[in-house]
């Protein structure tokens, strides 16, 4: 019996999609993320919650090296995806970001047609040999993003002409088009109305079958609805991580308890 936890831990280590160990993030002199350790499971949704400025978005951005674009930002510790260190000098950040796609808070389609928005990634990564293959990728990405029926007759129209919810699903289709394995979502629904939010949440639930999804959200109800595991961040520290139902019914840490029940000072 005593050996069980070890075995469990060992199997968790081998089945994790993403593994972060002692991750520190600094913005200049500010120590924004402290000693974060987390195992993220494949084919599941992990939600990061916490008050503004707690570091959840900063940590999310370390997972596809988006912080590289900020000069004063420094990341320490190790983050591996499928056992490979993504901060290794040999890793091409552009390739990494194709494998680890991202969807942002505000829908940000390119000022191009719906078709070109989705085709953009496959083109620059050379994923299609001809127009027919590219058409297939665009169609299947839009289908996976649940946008095909609404978009198929207006592929030449600008993506920016769609509704907010459609634009966000277009951004998800754009991320899917380069065949990522992981999709990071930074508050994907905060600019959407409840119906568009429900559609995105339904989509997240479907995508979970084929992708590893990490979502940052300010809405605890959303975290409770869409995720299998939830991680609570506070002041740059990962306070608690566990099955979503446990975090929302019986959190272990007082800080988590205070946050989810709305008692934060």
């Amino acid at each position, binding site marked *: 019996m005593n050996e069980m936890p070890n075995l469990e831990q060992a199997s968790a280590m081998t089945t994790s999609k993403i593994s972060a160990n002692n991750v520190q993030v600094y913005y200049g002199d500010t120590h924004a993320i402290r000693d974060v350790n987390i195992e993220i499971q494949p084919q599941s949704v992990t939600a990061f919650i916490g008050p503004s400025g707690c570091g959840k978005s900063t940590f999310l951005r370390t997972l596809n090296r988006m912080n590289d674009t900020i000069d004063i930002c420094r990341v320490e510790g190790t983050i591996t995806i499928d056992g490979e260190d993504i901060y290794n000098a040999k890793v091409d950040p552009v390739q990494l970001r194709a494998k680890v796609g991202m969807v942002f808070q505000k829908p940000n389609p390119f000022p191009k047609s719906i078709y070109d928005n989705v085709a953009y990634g496959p083109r620059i990564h050379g994923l299609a040999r001809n127009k027919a293959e590219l058409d297939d990728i665009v169609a299947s990405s839009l289908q996976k993003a649940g946008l095909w029926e609404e978009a198929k007759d207006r592929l030449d129209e600008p993506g920016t002409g769609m509704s907010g919810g459609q634009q966000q699903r277009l951004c998800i289709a754009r991320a899917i088009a380069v065949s990522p394995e992981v999709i990071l979502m930074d508050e994907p629904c905060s600019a959407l109305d409840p119906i568009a939010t429900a559609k995105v949440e339904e989509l997240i639930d479907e995508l979970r079958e084929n992708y590893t999804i990490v979502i940052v959200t300010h809405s*605890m*109800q959303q975290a*409770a609805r869409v995720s299998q595991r939830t991680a609570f961040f506070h002041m740059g520290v990962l306070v608690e991580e566990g099955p979503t139902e446990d975090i*929302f*019914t*019986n*959190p272990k840490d007082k800080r*988590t*308890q*205070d946050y*989810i*029940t*709305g*008692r*934060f*000072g």
Partner: protein
Amino acid sequence: MSEHTVSAYDQELTELAGKVAEMGGLAEKAFSDAVSSLVSQDLELAKVTIQKDERLDTLQQEVEVKLIEIIARRQPMGQDLREITAATRIANDLERIGDLAKNVAKRVIAIDSDLQSKKLAIGVEHMTELTLSQLKLVLDAYTRRDAEAARRVQEADAEVDAIYTSLFRELLTYMMEDPRVITQCVHLLFCAKNIERIGDHATNIAENVYYMVTGERLPEDRVKMDETTFSA
């Protein structure tokens, strides 16, 4: 526990807990009055006890309305979620305790004569004392958020069941000895069964208090001591 950022939320939770506490007091009183009226054949007290049950029913409905309102408006999580689900379940148990007490009071009116033998009442009184103290302890545990006290209440329920079993046998013996007391004894037997059920509701409350405080389920490994189902 510190206060919510939204103070109206605190008020709603306090109001809910207050209603449950009021129900606890009423249920306790109804139970002890019902048994007093039985032992002393006090018809007036029995009638009053029956009338007072209405207030418990009203409060239980109010608790339910409040619960739905809080869920709709606040989407409670964690401790708050456990607290309001426990409050509603406890309110249901207390409402049932009220019904069982009312049923005892109704039997006082049905018996409408002095008990043939004081002996008959002694067992019921003893059982009542124990069950009533269980109910008091568990209601205290609820107000004090005391999981350990709740756990002890759950454990002690076996004793109530054991007394019920022996009382059942005793009443059976009286009925065999003297058929004239059968009507009274059957009423007393139902009263005893009601009291035993009140004990079960106190145990349910204990389990809910434990869950509310700790977030863990109380293991239900106690041995069922009520053997009447097998001996009957």
